[in-house]
């Protein structure tokens, strides 16, 4: 088992990542891990270390950092709003114990997780307990009265290491070691920016923006596997000023490797010719469905949805399928979405945007990243999927 100091760096990485998530606001900015208090199991083994932390915002807090892999996680928790002052707590414990005259006999004192995560101060003489006082209440923790087979009551001591099921502890150790292996390379590379927590410096070193972390974002890939390359959709500008539907259908058919030019698609959709073009009337919206199916030799199953919802676009993109989107007077292809998860966390209306391959302007087109969902009217959506055999 690595010694306790070896977990300081991965713990600092965990704290830095927590800080990047802004779950604690800016309270962790500027925190450095100083000296901590070792918390023991009832059986005398080290369990974790409780480290007082205070960032530039001046909010007192403490972090529990594992010393024993059986805890299952490196950073076990961060408690905000409570100052951890080991010396002051020991003084209070001695005063409480003094009433019981225990401290006169004690030759050592330590903090013990008597019923994890509840902690007490244990007074020892010649290695034997003479008092165990619960933290802050300073009530004596009762000695064991139950048989080993019974579960502990609400205020009773039990050993984390000796009484948790062996299989459960083994799983915790494996999970802990896997996490250490995961974080070690990051810690080695970024020691200078995690030992004193600094969100901006860490993101700068990682080469990512905060926005990357705060948005649920998905774009079309080669497959649904995240590691596959993208984009897999090519922008096609409309070849006349009224062929937005033809260009949109072309982009989707291209995506599925059916290659047609817009002149051919115009014949199918009734959009005239290059020299005498026309748009697609409302009465023939469904021609998009029939064209997608016909020109893919029925390999594509297309569907027209009136007033498509956000979830329709999101779910199709997650399934790696582009969607033709009609807005009043125009047609485009949706190839991705983004949604602010952070805004949701703080109960504000999230920003939602679509990645749109827009065939306008003619012969060029633009890729819109992002189109504000809240400011547009989505009248029809055309989904298509490969027919399963």
């Amino acid at each position: 088992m690595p010694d306790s100091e070896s977990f300081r760096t991965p713990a600092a990485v965990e704290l830095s990542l927590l800080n990047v998530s802004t779950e604690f606001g800016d309270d962790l900015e500027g925190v450095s891990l100083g000296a901590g208090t070792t918390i023991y199991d009832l059986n005398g083994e080290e369990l974790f270390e409780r480290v007082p932390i205070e960032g530039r915002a001046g909010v007192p807090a403490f972090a529990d950092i594992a010393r024993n892999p059986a805890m299952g996680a490196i950073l076990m928790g961060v408690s905000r709003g409570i100052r951890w002052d080991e010396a002051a707590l020991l003084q209070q414990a001695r005063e409480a114990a003094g009433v019981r005259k225990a401290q006169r006999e004690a030759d050592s004192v330590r903090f013990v997780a008597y019923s994890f995560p509840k902690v007490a101060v244990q007074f020892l003489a010649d290695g034997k307990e003479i008092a165990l006082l619960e933290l802050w209440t300073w009530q004596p923790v009762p000695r064991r009265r139950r048989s080993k087979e019974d579960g502990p009551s609400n205020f009773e001591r039990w050993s984390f290491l000796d009484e948790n099921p062996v299989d459960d502890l083994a799983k915790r150790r494996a999970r802990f070691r896997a996490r250490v292996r995961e974080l070690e390379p990051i810690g080695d590379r970024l020691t200078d920016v995690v030992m004193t927590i600094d969100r901006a410096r860490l993101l700068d070193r990682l080469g990512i923006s905060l926005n990357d972390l705060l948005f649920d974002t998905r774009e079309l890939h080669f497959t649904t596997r995240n590691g596959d390359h993208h984009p897999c959709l090519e922008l096609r500008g409309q070849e006349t000023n009224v062929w937005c539907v033809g260009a949109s259908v072309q982009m989707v058919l291209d995506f599925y490797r059916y290659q047609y030019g817009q002149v051919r698609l115009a014949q199918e959709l009734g959009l005239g010719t290059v020299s005498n073009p026309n748009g697609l009337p409302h009465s023939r919206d469904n021609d998009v469905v029939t064209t997608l199916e016909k020109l893919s030799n029925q390999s594509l199953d297309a569907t027209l949805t009136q007033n498509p919802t956000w979830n329709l676009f999101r779910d199709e993109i997650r399934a790696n399928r582009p969607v033709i989107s009609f807005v009043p007077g125009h047609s485009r292809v949706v190839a991705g979405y983004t949604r602010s998860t952070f805004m949701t966390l703080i109960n504000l209306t999230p920003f939602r945007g679509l990645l749109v391959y827009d065939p306008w302007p003619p012969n060029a087109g633009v890729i819109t990243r992002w189109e504000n969902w809240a400011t547009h009217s989505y009248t029809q959506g055309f989904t298509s999927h490969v027919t399963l055999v």
Partner: protein
Amino acid sequence: MSEDETDLGPEVAAARARDAAADAIARGWARIPGADASDLVPVRIHVPTGESAGWFVGVVDGARLMGFIQLGPDLGFERASTFGGTGQAANDWLDPGRVSEVAAPLARPGERLGEPYLSYDRSPERIGWIVPVIGSESGGRQLMVTGSSVFELHHSTTEDDPEPKGPGRV
């Protein structure tokens, strides 16, 4: 009507549009490569009756227009778009004089071109410069310039459309 229509001079209104576009970039809503280091050049969008329809804020790197941020009349973010490749010539989209040059070949004998204004065709997504054609035989013709392309606007393409709620998809 928004505050910038009534109370603010054009420079102040443009500065507010520029600030709103910069804010959209900072918030991650406008993903245009290089936008942080580019110039933001706002141009007001008008509907044909003259009312403001928002702002087109060009993202300009030297002489190239890499993309644009479109804002509503209230400066609300609507979209951010990029052109493919190395973008388009900035003047084609931002200089009314250059727009008139692009439109000129479609003027017929006896016609002259009016003052171009940035607008759109049917849908705000279909943005471009409208150039009115003036002349006894013009019949109210309008040209639209989108970058280096120019074409005549035909609002009759869906006249036979039985759907009464608006134009077809063009």
